């Protein structure tokens, strides 16, 4: 029996529950189910995992990769190395082999010889004749393609010591009602598993062991969590135009509505999903429905945001609530639709022509997508303005380990200042845009309630009474109040998260899905005796906490995932911070940010200015 450790001298021995597997597959071959089978099995063994899907904008045929990080420290970010490569795509073999870390393992389908590209001496090659095993045991082209994936899952189970009972349990859950499929999947799993047990030493030094690191946690993607959040928050109208990577948000909303919002007795739907002709119409529908008193939302991505700009200005100026989920992808233009970026910060902050500023919420993970859905509706209705929830592809479409989502039954939606029929009866006269409470938020009315509440909503110049105007002074009264309303917003949006002692010279300011990489970087830096404070903004407008953090740190790294330092620009424009204090750490490759470049850049800066390393006295 050949030893797999013979030429793997560089492998550290303490890699239990801490390594990265990458699967190189062909899109459309059903590999996703095998990859998530392995990931979920490890998760059920109590070992924290994260999954990142690097997929093409394609239905079938192009290369696709899936990466599972087994992380006993529960780091949420992508690791910037690969320990085990499951190379199942001949087209990308050479690239995949190159990507493997020295001392790593390459699993490949040895049914066909690949000697010419297997030139690296610093890795261990694990040949498994997967196609041969599957072809000898199963009939049908499609069936063989699908089951080959399950066979390599069996190979990994043996090599990594994944609990077979856990895998069997998962297969039963998936195929319990389809005994034929359960049989073939179980058999394919055994083919791979048994081959390893017969032909090589196992498990590898990189392996999994049961631990207690996932109790009270789930694996969920951000779009599912956001869609679920909309259902719990009482949204009744969803309008959308399909666009990657936001599509699964509406799929989730619809799916949950079919489960929770169909009247058992009558079959009536307590929701409406409108698939619009384009994003312009989608946001128009949201504005129409919100104006009429429903909680309404639209999920989209960058190109959709570009199209929605005109309507967003209308909603801002005529003060109609609306909730827009922007699951950001790589721009500009069509860009790379299946890669991640945080490139829409500025366009959302100032969407539409004229003087406009919008409330933004920045979830960092699926858990926050769920809770921020309700917050977004509360803020939109309280402030009578558009609210953007800026997720991204990494959060929206990848599987993250999160604490169980919880709902507080005491939650009451904040529907804002909407006058009832009785309140209108008691009024002498209703004026739409008067600041009666000195918080710059006017009262609104809904159609169909009371003729005394009737008013004319318009995007053209209007005075505080709701009438048309071209009078400069009257126009400015409304515009100035809208500015004051944004100050009200700054007081009620979610506060930033601050990590650290608070008195370090260096600070990090970041946003959204950078969070996992930054927290990991902070751990690495701490081991090197470097302490840095960290603030993550959860909303725009920035509140006083952000101002205070910027003021109290001598140098600040602004970490974000775009080329042009959009968060840094927004901070520069919207706070009193001195621009020269801010240093950008940028990642805009389209892959989720990892910890290593953050560590490297901070160390480099510290080397440049050693006096700044000390904690202030």
């Amino acid at each position: 029996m050949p030893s797999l450790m013979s030429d793997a001298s560089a492998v550290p021995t303490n890699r239990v529950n801490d390594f990265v597997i990458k699967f190189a597959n062909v899109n459309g071959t059903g590999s996703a189910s095998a990859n998530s089978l392995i990931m979920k099995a490890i998760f059920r063994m109590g070992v924290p995992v994260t999954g990142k899907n690097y997929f093409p904008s394609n239905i079938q045929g192009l290369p696709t990769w899936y990466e599972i990080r087994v992380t006993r420290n529960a780091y949420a970010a992508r690791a910037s190395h690969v320990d085990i490569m499951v190379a199942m795509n001949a087209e990308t073999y050479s690239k995949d082999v190159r990507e493997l870390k020295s001392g790593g393992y390459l699993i490949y389908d040895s049914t066909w010889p690949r000697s010419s590209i297997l030139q690296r001496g610093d890795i261990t090659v694990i040949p498994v004749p997967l196609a041969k095993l599957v072809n000898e045991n199963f009939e049908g082209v499609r069936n063989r393609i699908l089951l080959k994936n399950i066979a390599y899952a069996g190979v990994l189970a043996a090599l990594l010591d994944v609990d077979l009972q856990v895998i069997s349990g998962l297969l039963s859950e998936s195929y319990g009602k389809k005994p034929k499929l359960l049989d073939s999947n179980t058999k394919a799993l055994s083919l791979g598993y048994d081959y390893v047990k017969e032909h090589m030493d196992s498990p590898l030094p990189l392996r999994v062991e049961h631990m207690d690191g996932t109790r009270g946690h789930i694996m969920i993607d951000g779009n599912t969590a956001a869609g679920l959040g909309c259902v719990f928050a009482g949204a009744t109208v969803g309008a959308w135009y399909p666009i990657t990577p936001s599509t699964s948000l509406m799929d989730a909303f619809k799916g949950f509505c079919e489960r929770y919002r169909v009247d058992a007795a009558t079959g009536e739907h307590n929701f409406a999903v409108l698939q619009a002709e384009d994003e312009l119409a989608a946001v128009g529908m949201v504005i129409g429905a919100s104006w009429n008193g429903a909680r309404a939302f639209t999920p989209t991505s960058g190109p959709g945001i570009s199209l929605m700009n005109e309507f967003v200005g209308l909603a801002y100026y005529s003060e109609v609530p609306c909730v827009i989920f922007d699951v950001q992808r790589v721009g500009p233009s069509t860009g790379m639709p299946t890669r991640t970026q945080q490139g829409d910060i500025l366009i959302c902050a100032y969407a539409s022509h004229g003087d406009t500023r919008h409330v933004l919420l920045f979830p960092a993970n699926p858990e926050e997508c769920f809770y921020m859905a309700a917050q977004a509706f509360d803020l939109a209705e309280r402030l009578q303005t558009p609210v953007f929830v800026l997720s991204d592809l990494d959060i929206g479409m990848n599987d993250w380990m999160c604490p169980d989502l919880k709902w507080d039954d005491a939650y009451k939606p904040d529907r804002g200042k909407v006058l009832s029929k009785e309140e209108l009866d008691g009024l002498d006269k209703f004026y739409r845009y008067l600041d009666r409470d000195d918080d710059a938020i006017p009262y609104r009315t809904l159609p169909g309630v009371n003729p005394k509440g009737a008013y004319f909503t318009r995007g053209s110049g209007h005075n505080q009474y709701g009438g048309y105007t071209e009078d400069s002074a009257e126009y400015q009264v409304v515009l100035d109040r809208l500015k004051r309303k944004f100050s009200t917003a700054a007081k009620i949006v979610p506060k930033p998260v601050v990590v650290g002692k608070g008195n370090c010279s260096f600070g990090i300011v970041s946003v959204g899905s950078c969070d996992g990489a930054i927290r990991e970087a902070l751990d690495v830096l701490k081991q090197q005796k470097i302490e840095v404070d960290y603030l993550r903004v959860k909303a725009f407008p920035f509140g006083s906490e952000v101002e205070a953090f910027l003021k109290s740190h001598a140098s600040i790294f602004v970490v974000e995932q775009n080329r042009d330092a959009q968060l840094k620009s927004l901070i520069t424009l919207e706070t009193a911070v001195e621009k020269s204090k801010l240093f950008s750490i940028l990642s805009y490759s389209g892959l989720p940010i990892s910890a290593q470049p953050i560590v490297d850049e901070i160390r480099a800066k510290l080397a440049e200015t050693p006096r700044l390393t000390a904690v202030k006295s």
Partner: protein
Amino acid sequence: MSYINKPKVAHPSLPTNELGLTRRQYEGSMSTLCAGCGHDSVTAAIVEACWGLSLRPEQLVKLSGIGCSSKTTAYFVSGSHGFNSVHGRMPSIASGANAANRSLTYVGVSGDGDSLSIGVGQLTHAIRRNVNMLYLIENNGVYGLTKGQFSASADIGSKAKRGEINSSPPIDPVLLALTLGATFVARSFSGDKAQLVPLIQAGMRHNGFALIDVLSPCVTFNDHEGSTKSYTFTREHYQPVVETDFVPHAAEIAVEYGAGESIPVSLHDGSRVVLRKLDPTYDPSDRTAAYSYIERKLKQNEYVTGLIHIDETDSTEFHNLNQTSKTPLNRIPFEKLTPGAAALEKLMGRYR
């Protein structure tokens, strides 16, 4: 231009409707359009139609885009909410508003620029979605606020005020609506209130998308010799093919029509429209035949008017297809909408 409220003083002897309201109480603010504008006649017809239906003002929702026609929603029924949105995008606002509350009466007023150029996409999809609303196009073949450019409904050979001849083929909203499967398609003329009022009433009561193309001459930019949308040209080439009477719910049909001449159609709320064919060969229930007829007549420079097509089977109306609750979505209490903590806890099992 300013915002002028009309005085609401009315002579005590003015007739009142079932709600005890006079026509004056269905008016809006003062029109700021040019004197003699066809649109003001349409506004008057809408006022008359709403008064005649005894519609509660707050039950009406007025929607529009941008343009001269879109301004008119401010000029009728001041007791109802109005939404003057952005250019060509009113149908999406209407779709969303209607989704949120199916119990109100939605009237959209648009123009040929707003509907057939910048907004043709939204119009077509609102028809396809079969949103329950009345959609009026005040069609004058010209852009008024930007001073006289041809619109997409301008006929080939029509002459602009400055002498330019239009050479691009027009988009006819009636043919467009028929092609898209609209269930209520009519054409009328702003100068024919007797025809327009019952059409508006029937369109408001139709369960689904009702389109009325109203030829509404622009006195300032398109009422000269050589224009095919002038008052003179329209009057000369105007051909009513179906006369329409609207019979409110529970009212008796006062006049007996001879068999074969009249076609009573029951509307969703129990009211009826009675169609009288002026051309015995015309069949308003046959979409394909209607299309051919209109197209043939257009080639002869004839504007066929009246209720051109009606299909009162309500199978494709948005809420019917969606199975939306009878209670408007915006009135369902939150407790019925949120699944609650226990349901969420149970759901978490799916993600372990």
